[in-house]
């Protein structure tokens, strides 16, 4: 099936309607497996059971960054091909990204309270995630301010691309500014620095979170397509109503 077919909103709705139950099932299953593995993971000899917050915190952090990348890719569909489905994908992704970023921040704060003795420190990684969160809120605000969906899409696309350029600079400058958080320890050239008993449940949870993200995103895209159809129908109805100017 060529990608053009998928890009038709009606085909997209039909396909995702068939896909959705499987995705929901896979998500539930992955979370069940992941949580059982997390339960089996040993407590840290220093951090105790609080280390298990990481199994939610780290996948959320990955998704927080990944969803901005997803939005940046979707902007190509918006700016190059002016495709409405790309607009829908970008719009549906923003609140999900904001939610995962918030989850990452909240779990980080809950972990920081017993470990660092405070909910918040102005450490580089925390700060750059907070700025990322603010930028998600900015994109959502822009989406909500512009009434016409395709114009909103192009405005948000420009902001998303500027953000995608600026986020590494923000990350780097905030690192320069201050650092206390432990450095990245899973993706490294020398191989992961985490023991397999922790790493395996972490990866299982990452898969579960990824499935959750895909499910939520497709569901949000479906809702957005339907919302636009309702909007169009209402506009047509308003135009056709007796006594209207036309």
């Amino acid at each position, binding site marked *: 099936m060529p990608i053009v077919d998928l890009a038709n909103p009606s085909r997209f709705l039909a396909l995702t309607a068939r896909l959705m139950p499987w995705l929901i099932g896979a998500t539930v299953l992955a979370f069940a497996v992941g949580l059982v593995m997390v339960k089996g993971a040993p407590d840290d000899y220093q951090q105790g059971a609080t280390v298990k917050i990481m199994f939610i915190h780290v996948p959320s952090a990955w998704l927080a960054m990944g969803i901005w990348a997803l939005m940046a890719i979707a902007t190509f569909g918006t700016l190059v091909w002016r495709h409405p489905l790309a607009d829908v994908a970008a719009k549906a992704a923003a609140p999900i990204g904001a939610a995962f970023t918030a989850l990452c921040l909240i779990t980080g704060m809950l972990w920081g309270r017993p470990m660092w003795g405070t909910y918040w420190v102005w450490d580089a990684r925390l700060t750059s995630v907070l700025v990322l969160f*603010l930028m998600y809120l900015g994109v959502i605000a822009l989406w909500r301010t*512009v009434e016409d969906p395709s*114009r909103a899409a192009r*405005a948000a696309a420009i*902001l998303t691309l500027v953000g995608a350029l*600026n986020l590494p600079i923000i990350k780097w*400058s*905030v690192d320069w500014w201050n650092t206390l958080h432990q450095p990245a320890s899973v993706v490294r050239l020398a191989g992961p620095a985490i023991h397999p008993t922790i790493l395996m449940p972490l990866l299982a949870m990452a898969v579960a979170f990824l499935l959750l993200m895909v499910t939520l995103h497709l569901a949000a895209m479906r809702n957005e397509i339907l919302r636009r159809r309702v909007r169009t129908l209402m506009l047509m109805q308003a135009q056709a109503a007796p006594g209207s100017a036309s």
Partner: protein
Amino acid sequence: MSALAALFVREVRLAVRVGGGGGIGALFFLIVVVLTPFAIGPDLALLARIGPAILWLGALLASLLTLDRLLTADLEDGSLDLILMSDTPLELAVAAKAFAHWITTGLPLVVITPLLGLLLNLDAGASAAVALTLFAGTPALTFIGAIGAALSVTLRRGGLLLAVLVLPLTVPVLIFGVAASNAAIVGPVPFGTPFTILCALTLASLVVGTFAAAAALRQGME
């Protein structure tokens, strides 16, 4: 006179003659600095220590405040349509407008910085350092702000949105501006390191800001 030079001269003339632009931004900057001691107390040692940060924050907010003047008036009187339809590339026109905007609103902030440094108990060297970093960094604020101004100019409720969109993007400029000022005053980092990065940020935002603002204007004015 080329079209770009004419546009530049027009912008500067308008800003100087119509009033309410750069002067008000500088006044706002002064008021922010005056209000700070009321909030944190008149401790001169503390003021000297956080003085560069206050000056940078004040300049950031002041340049944000004047941003809506960059395009709004041109949209209202229709000259923005003329600029869009002219042969001059829109990117260059935006750059000329933003540069003129910086001359009339950013430069006054830099000029009064040594004066405000006196209020914050900064010595001459420290004031000069802050003024120099503001001179290098405020163009970046204008060019980044131009993106937000272009995105929000055609919106009826764009005012507050502009601030929300622009402020997170200015984080690196603020970090390196204050870092360079502090490096000049207390060290231990050599002044050149953060200062050259600040200059690099300004140059990068000149490129990214003008292109993104031009793209935003094109889509907004359709």
